[in-house]
């Protein structure tokens, strides 16, 4: 478990935790035929060395664009990204491609969702791993091959010497994802982005891959940002969680605090929509009605208001700021937070008024 290890830094204040990544007011927009689409809208957060942050949200919440904006992996044309990203002593915004190439792989690496398409189908596995070792670390061909064998066995690939000569299509999805993890870890990065690393995989393989990421992260005391749409995936495996909606962080807290004292109705709704294996069959699921906002012209006020069971007139006009909760490190953006008297009153008022949120809700619940 990563938590026991990493929170140790907090119990001994004489060793101050080193801030590895600082993101301030990050804003990324894309030009589309319909107008400017703001995919990431004023996001700020910090990540300390060796810790794991989960970024959770639905499709279109901006979580993938956030990780790509931090890495500066955005298309050259049509995308604008402003704000401040300070990583390991580098000011990432404004670096040239050449400077970035010196950081990618060695200090900052990424594991993508689809292991089918993130490997080169025409190159042997071995060459894909040794490429970065030779380029970044200046290893000789034989040194790099030796190191690649070590890497492949550390990510749990049986008979690594033989696998080096395989092409990606000869491996199963789970093995391929292990290879992409080996490539990402090759040069010993300080921060690993894992963008939906298990979404394309079976449940059994998902568990293996998440175990592997946790073990590698602990061994290398590497920081990790785990991006996913599934709160179940991040629950037992992260120190902190940031929930994104409509391009903004709407709640952020240490993992246990988030689950115990969630304030944002969206977080509550996300958790409620997960089917649980410990519930009896045919338990109705609490679906979130409607769908995420259009980020070309987001609704005024709180972006979740059109789908929120707590929403009051104020929510539709006035945007709630991200404010501090009593618990340290817990921030949320809501006028009528879950679990507070105001929240309960708002929910009750909506229930009495019988507010129909969305036509979908009447059908689906």
């Amino acid at each position, binding site marked *: *478990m990563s938590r026991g290890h990493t929170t140790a830094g907090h119990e001994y204040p004489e060793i101050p935790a080193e801030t590895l990544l600082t993101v301030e007011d990050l804003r990324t927009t894309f030009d589309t035929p319909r107008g400017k689409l703001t995919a990431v809208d004023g996001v700020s957060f910090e990540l300390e060395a060796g810790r794991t942050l989960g970024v959770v949200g*639905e*499709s279109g919440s901006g979580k993938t664009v956030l990780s790509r904006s931090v890495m500066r992996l955005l298309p050259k044309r049509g995308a604008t990204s402003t704000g401040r990203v300070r990583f390991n002593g580098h000011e990432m915004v404004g670096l040239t491609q050449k400077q970035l190439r010196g950081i990618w792989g060695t200090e900052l690496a990424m594991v993508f969702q689809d292991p089918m398409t993130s490997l080169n189908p025409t190159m042997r596995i071995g060459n894909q791993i040794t490429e970065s070792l030779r380029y970044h670390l200046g290893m000789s061909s034989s040194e790099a091959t030796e190191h690649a064998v070590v890497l492949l066995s550390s990510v749990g690939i*049986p008979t690594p010497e033989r696998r080096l000569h395989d092409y990606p299509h000869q491996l*199963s*999805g*789970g*093995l391929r994802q292990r290879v992409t993890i080996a490539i990402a870890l090759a040069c010993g990065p300080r921060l690993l982005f894992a963008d939906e690393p298990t979404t394309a995989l*079976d*449940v*059994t*393989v*998902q*568990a*293996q891959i*998440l*175990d592997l990421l*946790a073990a590698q992260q602990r061994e290398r005391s590497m920081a990790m940002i785990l991006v996913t*749409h*599934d*709160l*179940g*995936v991040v*629950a*037992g*495996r992260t120190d902190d969680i940031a929930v994104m909606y409509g391009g903004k962080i709407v709640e952020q807290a240490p*993992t*246990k605090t*988030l*689950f115990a004292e969630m304030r944002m109705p969206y977080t509550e*709704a*996300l*958790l409620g*929509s*997960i*089917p*649980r*294996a*410990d*519930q*009896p*069959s*045919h*338990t*109705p*699921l*609490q*679906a*979130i*009605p409607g*769908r995420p906002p259009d980020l070309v012209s987001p609704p005024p006020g709180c972006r979740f208001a059109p789908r929120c069971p707590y929403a009051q007139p104020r929510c539709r006009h006035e945007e709630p700021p991200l404010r501090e909760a009593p618990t340290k490190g817990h921030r949320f953006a809501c006028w009528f937070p879950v679990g507070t008297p105001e929240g309960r009153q708002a929910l009750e008022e909506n229930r009495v008024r019988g507010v129909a949120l969305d*036509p*979908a809700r009447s*059908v*689906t*619940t």
Partner: protein
Amino acid sequence: MTTNDALLSVENLVVEYPVGRGRKVHAVSDVSFDVQAGETLGVVGESGCGKSTAGKAIVQLPRPTSGSVLFEGTDLVKLDGDQLRRFRPRLQMIFQDPVSSLNPRRRVEDIVGDPLSVWSAELESSVASKQERKAKVAEVLEAVGLDPVSAAGRRPHEFSGGQCQRISIARALVLEPKVLICDEPVSALDVSIQAQIINLLEAMKARFSLTLVFISHDLAVVRNISDRVAVMYLGKLCELAPSDVLYRTPAHPYTAALLASIPEPDPAIVPSTTGRLTGELPSSIDPPSGCRFRTRCPRAEERCAAEEPVLREVATGQRVACHFPLVEARPAAPANVASQQSA
């Protein structure tokens, strides 16, 4: 094994695909189960276990290599093309990827309405006029939670993934089928949208008195929607049980391993690495002898390699194909010794 009052009985189903040089993929090997009218049967397993192939073989797409599929007492495998056509409207299917299973160039009203024209000769209640057809399309679109007025004239790309899945469901329901086979219908969707579609399927099942076969790799989803669950591994049926029983007391070691890998949305539960499956799925061209799960099974013994376990009842309604099932283990002696003695 199969009761006569089952709406759908699959008996000794075998599906094999030739892969050249005389070799074949054993996609589904001797699988039997039945589905009672009005129930939801869940089918779970990893990629490559044959669950989708089994689902498609039920609707004869393609026809199975051998075995029979009895629908209301008629063996679909034995029917010729014309006879089979008469049954097709009553067995409908929805697929995993809602966007690619809809023709991007057609309007929603045509996508949903076409089955009515295509199957007009086979349908009991024929929809003769344009007005009737339009009314029927509007009715099902409304039922699946889409606004018929605004949706009818639009094309699939104007809809989100969840809405496209609603359109697929509407297209299947317009024929008023008896059986709806859902092949990973929510796997491509976000959790929030997934919940909408599951709730929708439950509502549609009640409204149109459907019988569902729900194929998925997600055990939590299957538990939620199913009355009974069939677990498949490498083309074989491992376990078949009422879903509450299966999840409380799994009998097959594979079922137990699958349950151990479900991520829990609760930070208090530390993911434990014990009980995890290790290794890779063996090739279905040359599956292991005896029990196909033995190469990854923590309880496997020599007997498992020599003798193939048959499906047998270990508790009411719970059938398992395992020489050393988990529910028979006696607490006093080590499990494998105990079952060896009894065997």
